[in-house]
């Protein structure tokens, strides 16, 4: 039934139950740190803290996310924006531990890019996310470009190597 409905992202929690205002004590997933109060005041108007805690991105990625929210009406001042991006990219940047149980172990095939995949993709999410689906070369290229923007430490040549490796081992027919 839900597919009948579209909805405005910014107010989904409010519209769904009217209990959207999360207080600091309700946000155990948000560690202490500079900017936390602004995240609680601004972001948890609409989001539960799990929405941030389950994602890993660098400052570029979080700035992009916060920009998207500003474009749909989040009440953010320029100073808030810097504080929020700073907090999120520190608390939930690449290399910080994800909440919840560990991901399924994956034995990556040998290849030139195996070490690159381990050193980049695995910093932010489980390898089951890499190996879980067969994808087209175009899709792998698009995904790796995005991941680099979000913080995967891969230069242009390394990105090509990773795309070739993923296409070789996890290509859609």
């Amino acid at each position, binding site marked *: 039934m839900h597919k009948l409905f579209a909805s405005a992202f910014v107010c989904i929690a409010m519209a769904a139950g009217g209990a959207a*205002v999360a207080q600091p004590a309700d946000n155990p997933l948000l560690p202490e740190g500079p900017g936390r109060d602004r995240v609680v005041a601004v972001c948890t108007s609409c989001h539960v803290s799990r*929405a941030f805690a389950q994602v890993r991105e660098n400052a570029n990625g979080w700035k992009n996310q916060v*920009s998207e929210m500003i474009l749909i009406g989040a009440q953010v001042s320029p100073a808030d924006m810097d504080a929020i991006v700073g907090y999120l990219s520190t608390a939930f940047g690449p290399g910080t531990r994800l909440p919840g149980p560990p991901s399924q172990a994956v034995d990556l095939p040998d290849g030139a890019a195996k070490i690159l995949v381990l050193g980049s993709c695995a910093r932010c999410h489980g390898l089951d996310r890499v190996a879980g689906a067969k994808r087209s070369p175009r899709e792998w290229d698009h995904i790796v470009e995005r991941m680099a923007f979000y913080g995967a430490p891969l230069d242009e040549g390394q990105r090509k190597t990773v795309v070739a490796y993923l296409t070789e081992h996890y290509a859609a027919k």
Partner: protein
Amino acid sequence: MKGTGGALFVEQLKAAGVEYIFFNPSTGDAPIYDAMVDQTDIHLIKGVQEGVVVAMADGYARASGKPGVAIVAAVGLPNAMTQLVNTYKDRIPLMLAMGVPAREAESRGGAQQYDGQETLLTPISKWAWRTESAAGLPDITRKALKFASTRPGGPVSLWLSEPGLREEATATIVDEAAFNTPISMRPNKADIETIARLLIEAKNPLLTVGDEITLAQGEREVRELAELLGLPVMGSAVLGQWSTPFPTRSPLFLGGLQANTPALGQVDIHLNVGSWLGEQTARGAKLISIRQDPATLGRATPVDMGVIADPKLACADLVEAVKSLATKDRLKKIADERTRRVADYTEKARKLRHDVAMQFSTGSPIRLNRLAFELEDFLDKDTIYVADLDSGRKMEPLMNFGGDDKMYIGNGPAVLGWGISAGLGVKLARPDKPVIALVGDGSFLFGGPQPLWSLSRYQAPITVMVLNNRSYNNERNRIWAFGGGSQLSRGLDMTCYNGSPDVDIAKTAQAFGVEAEQVNDPETIKAALGRAKRANIEGRPYLLEVVIERDGIGGASEWHPPFSIASLRTRKV
């Protein structure tokens, strides 16, 4: 007047000022269409699926303020109901009628009958009734139109007995003025004075606004109230709200409704006018809610003071009360100080939105913020902007609606498949206004191509824009961002990718005789809008399929669960 039930029905609709019947026919309601053969003051507008019929009537009602009238086949009722949810939740006046066999025949259980069919509509009808005889049909029709349009309005349902439509009878036809007196409830004077005092003395007030203002045509009065007191205002079309009753360009306008107000800090006095959703804003403040609809006042959130009244009259009375309670100089001082405070934020926020949007406004696929800039720049200010969008809602804070700017008409519950049909209904109601109807690929596919048939048949000169990101994109973002779960952790989009098959939407429109083109390059948007406008001026509809970026978490993925029915076969048949 003497005539068949069908003829009496049509004459009563005419006497009530009904100009259009939106319909999809069935055999049993033929006497209605027989009676239409020689009519020139009332017209039939056909939709080839019941949801289209209701959405056209709904759009017409929102833009005209008059009840929409829709007739559908009873067996197609579930299709109609999908769109009727929009009508019911937004309190839009609409009469939905269906022909049905006589009770005795129904009891035998025909091929298209099932017991309890009438009860399907009960939860989403303001009133439902069944007509049995031709003689009684005009009277019940009058009641239905009266109940639909008496505020708070809403859809009413009529089950028309087919023998009653066929038989001849004599009945009185009554002009609308004699049975449907408009009701405008003036608020209690003491309540208004109390609210006026609170607003004058407030340290950090907030005004939230909603659709009941639009329905009451009270935009001017609410604006006068806000400007008189320098009240910060929140409330535009979001999920649950379908219109933008306050000019978004105003320095007092903070944006859409949110659960709290980081830009203002803790609000002390919160006046909500005409919005059920607005009552859920600004927690911790003293909440005064002026509403047209008693059923939803205080339904989700307790209110400190509730007032049932026409929002237009209430705002007008508040303006007078405020003026009587404070000197002109005092009011100016209060308004100037508050306006300065909020304008400082809104100006910076507007600049920040613009700067952020500019950073990501080039490249292909087209980004929504670039499209927003192009639309804002191109569309005439008197355009009616009909929106059935999800991801595309991101464009709205970069555009201007309300006041002297574009009129916004959406659908509060956001049930998909509404926008193109509603756009046709809006154009019928306001033929001299430019109309653009925007839908996502999700809504286009969900609603099906049937609205294109009506656009083409009736030469409806509107621009349809389909924002195609080949996904239920915002749905995936919500699922992954709010729910997390295996789809996020494994990177597997089990539900939302629509790009396989990659439907050529422009070609689909062309198949229905609607001129159309696909737009991929941001530099070509303006020229494409120009071609659409030219076609509209010349009296033809035009569809633009704009391929937009599929953004957000998992947006790069094209993966979907691989499953082939052909592969199930053990022999090639």
